[in-house]
């Protein structure tokens, strides 16, 4: 009973701390992704997009909007958790949390919730900006929302794992630069994979982010190049695997207890 009450105090405390952190530095956490999105929409959506013509039967602008939104969401959710947890480690304030009677899953849930909220806020802002560039039709709002939440959760947990293993500030930026950015760009944000030669198309199918972006594009436009159920099955399995990996790492104290 008492433990239960403790958890109900612990979760909102961590969660609120996380949300306050990124809101207080909104100039670095929310605005940059809005600027780069606007630039992409102007240049590739409008200017170049007019010359690209239609892709998969819709205008190029409409084609890239879902991918661009997911790009902002994925990067933001990941960055939020990696950065926040790594800072807490670096400044040793994580130790206060570790000696408090908070179970690992409550701490994990607090960080994930923070990352998901950042992902959703960035996603909504992105949606508003895209709407300013032309009428955005959403074929299935439920699928869009579900994809946004699941992608935010997956990459919050991935960011959590990154922060646990990180030993210095470089380790925090390596995965986003060397893994996430290439996988997102090659995950069909800007092109339909049926434009690729066979070999590269098959290789693309190994990229999990391709499924996330396609699920989002299905939610917006009804167009999808992979199997929708497979996409959601894949997202769910990533959520489960990452969640239990995080719990296991927390329990073993990897990167936290020395």
């Amino acid at each position, binding site marked *: 009973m008492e433990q239960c009450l403790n958890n109900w105090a612990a979760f909102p405390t961590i969660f609120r701390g996380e949300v306050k952190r990124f809101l207080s530095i909104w100039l670095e956490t929310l605005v940059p992704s809005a*600027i780069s999105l606007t*630039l992409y929409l102007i240049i*590739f959506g409008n200017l170049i997009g007019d010359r690209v013509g239609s892709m998969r039967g819709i205008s190029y602008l409409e084609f890239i909007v879902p991918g661009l939104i997911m790009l902002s969401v994925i990067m933001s959710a990941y960055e939020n958790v990696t950065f926040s947890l790594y800072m807490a480690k670096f400044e040793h304030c994580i130790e206060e949390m570790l000696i408090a009677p908070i179970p690992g899953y409550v701490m994990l849930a607090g960080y994930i919730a923070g990352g998901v909220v950042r992902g959703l806020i960035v996603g909504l802002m992105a949606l508003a900006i895209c709407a300013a560039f032309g009428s955005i039709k959403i074929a299935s709002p439920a699928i869009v929302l579900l994809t946004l939440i699941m992608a935010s959760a997956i990459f919050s947990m991935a960011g959590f794992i990154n922060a646990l293993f990180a030993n210095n500030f470089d380790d925090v930026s390596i995965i986003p630069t060397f893994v996430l950015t290439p996988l997102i760009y090659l995950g069909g944000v800007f092109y339909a994979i049926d434009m690729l030669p066979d070999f590269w198309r098959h290789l693309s199918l190994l990229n999990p982010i391709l499924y996330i972006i396609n699920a989002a594009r299905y939610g917006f436009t009804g167009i999808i190049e992979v199997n929708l159920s497979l996409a959601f099955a894949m997202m769910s399995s990533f959520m489960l695997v990452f969640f239990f990996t995080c719990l296991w790492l927390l329990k073993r104290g990897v990167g936290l207890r020395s």
Partner: protein
Amino acid sequence: MSFYELWISFSTIVIKEVRRFLRIWVQTLIPPIITMALYFVIFGNLIGSRVGDMGGFDYVAYIVPGLIMMSVITNSYSNVVSSFYSAKFQNQIEEVLVSPTPNFLILVGYIVGGVARGLIVGFIVTLVSLFFTDLHIAHAGIMLSVVVLTSILFALAGFLNAIYAKNFDDISIIPNFVLTPLTYLGGVFYSIDLLPEFWRNLSLINPILYMVNAFRFGVLGVSDIDVVTAFGVIMLFILAFFVLGLYLLKHSKGLRS
């Protein structure tokens, strides 16, 4: 100070600057290569084949000069801004300031460091671009002088940013909010002929447009603007930034309080 002593001061700063970015090459040299390779694949090859020609060239050939300039600009700037700001932050700049090194030599030393990084990255990106297109250089002299001058300009700009910066946020604000938009809208990806008249005229007040186009003239022989004007604009900025940099080194409260 004798000439020899001046040379020692200068080369010490340059060697330190170059070693700094070479030591952390995973963060300084590799990321721009990855980003540019992605741009070449996606916008150059895949989307480029649907865009058709721009300024009389394949789209990929058209954007290569722009993307090379983009990496030179970002890297020259960020090298000086992070290095000089860190030196300030850790107070080690004071050692340089109390030494008999003249201010202009400190400034030139940091600038050369930034230019070295800008040019190395520019060179590697050029090599990467050769996997995607053939480069026939139209005017090698113009190409080289534009890239070196632009690199100097943005190394100086990074220096000014570092002097004014009071915390780590201040060194990311200008790159995020000024440099990136001006570069993307500076004709890297498109010819300003594609724009409606109002936006085309507005683009003409963006200094980066002149640098990208002058460089493109050097590589491809086509440009949206007059190359002589472009050189004028670049030289003017370099002069203004250099004088301001010297003035701030002498008087800035950010350094000497």
